[in-house]
């Protein structure tokens, strides 16, 4: 055995949780049992559905990506780099299969650690156990990866404190009205108490109200009804004892893991978390499952059923908590934005439905013509994560001059009601009044076509500005065919007036550059946001505008999301594939970043002070700004923009 090598591995592991919680002797023992794996980029270390071997892994160098494959779709769940632990499932349970696929994304050195080496230590060490239980319940290796890494490194204390954040999202509502009885109660009486109170379980307590056992209807069925014991016997003969207890502060993750490990369905909550203190409540497996019902499909179902605006408001707030959780768990942005778009769209649709009903009750019926509600701007691009200003419009079928007045008046009323509901749900009114309730943006198909043609044929700076918002329209409710007709008209007009694209391209170049010559962040020099970095204007706008003009030029129809636009462009122009992929990644990073900042400061996340970022965040942002410059070069060359100067 080589001590030098063992110590070298130890020196690395001790800096990283959960090894940082392990005593020196134990960790040296673990270090002596490790194998070092060198893995080439692209190598699959394990696949979803495979049976885990007796190992788990820690990245020493390089990067490993974890994917979830669902119906032939690969969703990136996590990227593990130096010090990150993955493949921990065998630690929790031996009979489960891998739920994720691990693919090496950057040539990697990985430590392979035998599960057996870690099992004993896990049981003896609270910090380690907590670490794993929250990782496990969150479904990923480390729910606080990357963004709060620094804090995790400091100490176990900090890490455990951080846990409370997750509890906020997942508060376990434990039942405080527990039916109890004493040990000398007869089985028959206990069964009666259970029946009278309509409960499936009863907790046996001593004189101090400390829980000493539990009986469930299953015990009654299996032990009494089956005939092993008589109903006059005392309850202590059939109760399960001792009782598994936990503290009221325990997270859902902790409780769930405890249930899995002990193979139980109920946990008693006591004052100090041990069986030797007063019982305060009980959590059942069902309570935990209900909690995990906080998922997108449940939200959408609830939205569809909502009868009141206040319900929509609440659901949108809860969706934001879900967003927070997703961001923390580093779920991929394309997945998050898809879900948030679904939720936002569902709210939008419900708001329209509620308003239609309300108008009908007042005797105003919807005109019997085709019409469509359009989302614009970031909602239209399906990339609205935080609740930002609403931008929307209405298009309706061409009608006779006689009908026009009534039709328009109805849709303006409708739009007024809908925008009001959206405003209540936290999508504040558009300050520039680009909403369907504005008579300028509630138009017939013919009027819209004329409007777009005016912008395309006489591209003033104002026209270009409107284009950047209205060209990203996305049908939400009604007759989607109308939206398609609008798109057809736009492409037809662009074919006749190719130079319009040059104006759009020029506009895409007008965003100020993100970095100075010395790769410092360019901050605002004056105004309300002096010395702050404007991530929207300096990083997001150039990416969004660039994607729009390039997809229009390539006549790619029906794709609005910036990331998807770059993905599509990468398919179309293989010679620039790499750049477009980098741009898609860059947009994903800035979107995530802005959402994180927004949730942290409870604002739009648009402005922040560069010095508040840690080194890694700065580096990450700087790297994703690099391809923006290349994008702008492409635009300049392709649209002959030098002549515009």
């Amino acid at each position, binding site marked *: 055995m*080589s001590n*030098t090598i063992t110590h*070298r591995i130890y020196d*690395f592991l001790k800096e990283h949780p959960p090894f940082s919680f392990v005593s020196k002797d134990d960790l040296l023992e673990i270090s002596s049992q*490790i*194998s*070092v*794996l060198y893995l080439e980029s692209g190598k699959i270390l394990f696949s979803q559905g495979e049976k885990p071997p007796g190992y788990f892994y820690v990245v020493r160098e390089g990067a490993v990506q974890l994917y979830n494959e669902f119906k032939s779709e690969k969703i990136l769940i996590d990227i593990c780099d130096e010090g990150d632990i993955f493949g921990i499932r065998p630690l929790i349970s031996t009979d489960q299969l891998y739920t994720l696929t691990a693919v090496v994304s950057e040539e990697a050195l990985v430590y392979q650690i035998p599960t057996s080496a870690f099992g004993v230590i896990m049981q003896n060490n609270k910090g380690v156990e907590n670490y794993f239980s929250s990782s496990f319940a969150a479904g990923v290796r480390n729910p606080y990866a990357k963004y709060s890494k620094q804090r995790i490194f400091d100490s176990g204390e900090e890490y455990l404190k951080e846990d409370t954040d997750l509890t906020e999202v997942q508060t376990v509502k434990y039942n405080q009205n527990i039916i109890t009885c004493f040990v000398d109660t007869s089985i028959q009486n206990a069964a009666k108490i259970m029946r009278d109170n309509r409960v499936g379980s009863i907790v046996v307590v001593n004189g101090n109200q400390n829980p000493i056992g539990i009986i469930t209807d299953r015990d009654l069925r299996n032990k009494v009804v089956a005939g092993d014991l008589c109903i006059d016997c005392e309850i202590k003969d059939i109760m399960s004892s001792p009782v598994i207890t936990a503290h009221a502060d325990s997270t859902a993750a902790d409780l769930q893991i405890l249930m899995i490990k002990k193979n139980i369905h109920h946990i008693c909550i006591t004052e100090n978390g041990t069986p030797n203190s007063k019982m305060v409540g009980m959590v059942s497996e069902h309570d935990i499952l209900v909690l995990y019902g906080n998922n997108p499909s449940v939200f959408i179902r609830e939205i569809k059923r909502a009868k009141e605006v206040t319900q929509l408001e609440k659901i949108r707030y809860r969706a934001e908590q879900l967003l927070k959780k997703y961001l923390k768990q580093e779920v991929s942005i394309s997945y998050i934005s898809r879900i948030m778009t679904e939720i936002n769209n569902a709210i939008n649709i419900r708001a329209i439905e509620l308003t239609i009903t309300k108008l009908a009750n007042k005797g105003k019926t919807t005109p019997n013509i085709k019409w469509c509600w359009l989302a614009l701007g970031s909602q239209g691009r399906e990339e609205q994560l935080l609740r930002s200003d609403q931008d929307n419009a209405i298009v309706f079928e061409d009608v006779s001059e006689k009908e026009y007045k009534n039709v328009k008046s109805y849709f303006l009323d409708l739009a007024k009601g809908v925008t009001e509901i959206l405003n209540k749900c936290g999508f504040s009114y558009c300050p520039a009044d680009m909403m369907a309730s504005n008579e300028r943006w509630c138009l017939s198909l013919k009027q819209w076509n004329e409007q777009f043609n005016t912008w395309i044929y006489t591209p003033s700076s104002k026209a270009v500005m409107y284009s950047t918002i209205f060209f990203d329209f996305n049908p939400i409710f009604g007759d989607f065919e109308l939206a398609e007709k609008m798109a057809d008209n736009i492409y037809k007009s662009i074919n006749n007036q190719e130079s319009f694209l040059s104006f759009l391209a020029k506009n895409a170049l007008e965003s100020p550059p993100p970095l100075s010559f010395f790769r410092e962040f360019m901050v605002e020099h004056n105004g309300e946001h002096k010395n702050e970095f404007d991530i929207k204007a300096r990083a997001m706008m150039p990416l969004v505008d660039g994607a729009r003009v390039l997809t229009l030029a390539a006549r790619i129809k029906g794709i609005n999301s910036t990331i998807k636009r770059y993905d599509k462009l990468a398919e179309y122009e293989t010679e620039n594939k790499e750049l477009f992929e980098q741009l898609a990644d860059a947009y994903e990073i800035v979107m995530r970043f802005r959402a994180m900042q927004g949730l942290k400061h409870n604002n739009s996340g648009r402005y922040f002070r560069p010095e508040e970022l840690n080194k890694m965040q700065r580096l990450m942002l700087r790297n994703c700004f690099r391809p923006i410059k290349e994008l702008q070069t492409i635009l300049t060359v392709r649209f002959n923009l030098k002549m515009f100067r």
Partner: protein
Amino acid sequence: MFGLFKRKINEALPDCWKEYLANFSEKQNLNIPITESKFVVLDVESNGLDPKKDKILSIGAVRINNNKIDTSNSLEIFLNQSEFNPEAAPIHGILKNGKTEKISEQDAMRKLVEFINSDIIVGHSIVFDIAIINETIKKYVNDKLLNKSLDTVLLYKRFKGGDFKVGDSTSLDVLCDEFKIPKSDRHNAAGDALITAILFLKLISRLKQRGVINLSDLLKNKRLL
């Protein structure tokens, strides 16, 4: 080159050497993928660079099985050498009568041959390491190591091909930087053996992409550069 010709085992040899030679009684199959082969990666620290005159101070070695470095099966020995060159000490961090437990030269050679069996020996400038080990072994038996060997310096040159220029450094330090290999406490035999093992895995992975798949592909050409 160390041949594989059949030798008569001399009854007068020490048992450990007889056992060592017995490992070579069967011809090794070289038509197996590199990734399924066994290697011992070795590093020797000595008090000088003359195999005939200088002495081994320590030996570090790790095993590679199935492309995996098994650190639980590693070797780290320090030798008790009466002659000691104080100038070499600061580089290696090995002090005469320091805290580490030391064993005699003879015991060290016994442990070494027990560890390496007939596996292929890998090392950085391995010719020197094998030469000084052979000089040491010669003091006790009239024989030398029979293992095949691979030099990571030569593998590196093979990987670089035409890009390698005469005069380019091939020191372990420089190669670690180029291949992004973490290198804490270098200049210690076991530490260097681990680093060399990682370098070796990275090199064979790159050579694999150029059709060096089987052990025989790896062993032939090895003196090409």
